[in-house]
């Protein structure tokens, strides 16, 4: 069973709808730690501010079970947008600490002439990581992004995809069973469907 964590932020309906569309069954949306405990795979979505995200997780008492599932049981875990940023050690956007699963932090895009913030729209990604399991070879992938902060990984081997917006930034990261994607697969047509399908097959 795939659990999409409902902590009050994020495109929950869209993710669930895309799974349904591609024929993946047994997907639930939940904020219940007992249901999350039973999941064989977990998705942490998110749209919004870093501190709102972390404090919602804290208030719902979900931090322990998420740590358990990701770090101890090592189930496949996918963080999307804010969900990905929460998996780092922290963000320039907020004061609270992140989950700390990646040696990385989220920093702000600096607006400049010709470069509006947030980065909002479709953009291509470059799969530079050796561990990619999602993308079909010889197909150029683009995804829908909407974010003002981007993740900077300290460890080069944690970087899965790179995208460019004024500069190169880490669009997807991966460490063992844990994946993070800055873009929204659930809003990226068949490109995103490839991601969610492969995730369901891990």
């Amino acid at each position, binding site marked *: 069973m795939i659990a999409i964590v409902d902590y009050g932020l994020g495109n929950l309906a869209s993710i669930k709808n895309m799974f349904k569309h591609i024929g993946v069954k047994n997907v639930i949306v939940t904020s219940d730690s007992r249901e999350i405990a039973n999941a064989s795979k977990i998705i942490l979505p998110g749209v919004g501010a870093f501190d709102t995200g972390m404090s919602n997780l804290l208030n719902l008492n979900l931090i322990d079970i998420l740590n358990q599932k990701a770090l101890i049981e090592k189930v496949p875990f996918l963080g999307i947008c804010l969900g990905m940023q929460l998996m780092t050690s922290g963000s320039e956007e907020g004061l609270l600490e992140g989950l700390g699963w990646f040696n990385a932090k989220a920093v702000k895009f600096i607006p400049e002439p010709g470069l509006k913030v947030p980065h909002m*729209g479709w953009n291509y990604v470059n799969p530079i990581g050796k561990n990619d399991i999602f993308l079909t070879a010889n197909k150029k992938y683009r995804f829908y992004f909407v974010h003002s902060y981007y993740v900077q990984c300290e460890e080069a081997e944690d970087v899965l995809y790179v995208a460019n917006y004024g500069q190169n930034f880490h669009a997807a990261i991966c460490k063992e069973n844990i994946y993070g994607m800055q873009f929204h697969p659930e809003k990226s047509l068949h490109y995103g469907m490839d991601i969610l399908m492969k995730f369901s097959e891990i």
Partner: protein
Amino acid sequence: MVKDRRLVKTINFEDPKYVGDPINAVKIFNDKEVDELVVLDINASKVNSTIDFELLKDFASECFMPLAYGGGVKNLSDFKKLFNLGIEKIIINTLIFDNPETLKLAAQKFGSQSVVASIDVVKDRNGDFQIFSHSGRNSDMGFSDFLKYVETLNVGEVLITSVDREGTWSGFDENLIRLVNSQVSIPVIANGGCGSPSHLTSILYHTGVQAAAIGSMAVYQKKDMGVLIRFPKRDSIIIDE
């Protein structure tokens, strides 16, 4: 454009013609790789009626690209309900006049990237641009002042529609779009009049706007021809990707 759950198309915002089932259209737009879908309920905004949440839920469940909705959005509860359905952005027009404070609050609460101000423009007898309001509301401000005022309401983007060009296939009003783009610092979406992929190439590459919208080109085979849900190929518009 949706009216009474039917997909419709207007010319100069008049005379809506039926062009099909909205849910069917979404499925086709998914296949055609539309970048973003804008749904405007033209009844909800005019007749002071309620938002059709049921229809939008069906829409959102079939739409795998970003979805923006406008029409009759009045309060924070409307915003929240729409975002919960899976809609990315909310488009407001009447609210700018009726309750700018609510608009500002919504942008603060949900993020300005999720709120789009829709401004409809006509040319008056002198050839000057004037704000056109469906609901009859109006602004005493001059055109440029109004644009700058809208930006202070924290919206993330501005959707500019030339009412004179809308539905005419004659091309975007590039002078209008260029003027608006120079007056605001937030992204501008050009709308109204697109008749060919070359119009899109021109508006995107010659005016510096972030985005452009098509209406008639997505629902008719050609000007004055029958209904066909379609979308131009990316490489007929974008140069060098």
